[in-house]
């Protein structure tokens, strides 16, 4: 696979480490989080057969975490963005 890094251009996927569903960004922080919320965040995945947004880490590159939109049936990649930007857009900050 080739991941088209938004800053570095196409790179072989073997330079990257895969983590999984982009929802892992949405960690329920804070003391008032319930065990169930935390359980669901960590364990339950949509696992779609089709378009999937997922986290990849450019370990053998610039160490950026990326959000890759990839079809799990065809492996076609339609979008790649820096995860930091996605995280901010999803409301994460400090």
């Amino acid at each position, binding site marked *: 696979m080739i991941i088209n890094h938004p*800053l*570095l*251009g196409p790179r*072989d996927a*073997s*330079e990257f480490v895969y983590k999984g569903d982009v929802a892992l960004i949405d960690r329920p922080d804070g003391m008032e989080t319930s065990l169930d919320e935390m359980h669901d965040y960590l364990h339950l995945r949509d696992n779609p057969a089709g378009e999937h947004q997922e986290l990849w880490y450019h370990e053998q*590159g610039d160490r*950026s975490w990326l959000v890759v939109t990839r079809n799990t049936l065809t492996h076609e990649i339609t979008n790649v963005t*820096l995860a*930091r930007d996605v995280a901010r857009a999803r409301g994460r900050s400090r």
Partner: protein
Amino acid sequence: MAEITLTSIPCLGGVDLRIGAIRVLERDDLALISVAVPQEGEAAVADALRSTWDLPMPAPQRVSTAGDRSALWGAPDQVLLLGPRSTEWEGEVAAALDGKGYVTDQTHAWAILEVRGPGIQAAFERLVPLDLDPEMFPPGAAARTALEHMAAIVLRLEAERFLLLSASSTAQSFLHAVTTTLTWYEEIAPGA
């Protein structure tokens, strides 16, 4: 214990060899300093680099150069400064940045090989996974990648002159990978 002073020993013993037409030598004379750019601090770092050394901020996958100093793009919030090795430089960089960036000397984390000579781009086809076509990777380009299971930075100085950086702990394995590649290239395409 004033009578003892420590000496710096090159990672690869200052290796300098020729394989066919290609020369491989260790560059133990270079220093590498990481400058991390604080949140919202990019302009300040850029100012400092420009005003102190006339170094522009490098674009991704590129190197900017002024005299014997270069700045490599390292990550979205990191610049790597490459220059002549001296004990003072980290201090100099820290002084120049004056708190505008976080400075970490990385000189000793890396072993640096200079590899140059005719045919090098073809030889590197069996080593470097990047597209080294001059249109894609011209002199002044630099990229981090992995080769033979080792992290590396590949920097093109001239059309047929590269710097290869590898972690200092794997320097021996890295050198082996490079020399094997060049030896094979010589055997497969003698004199090319």
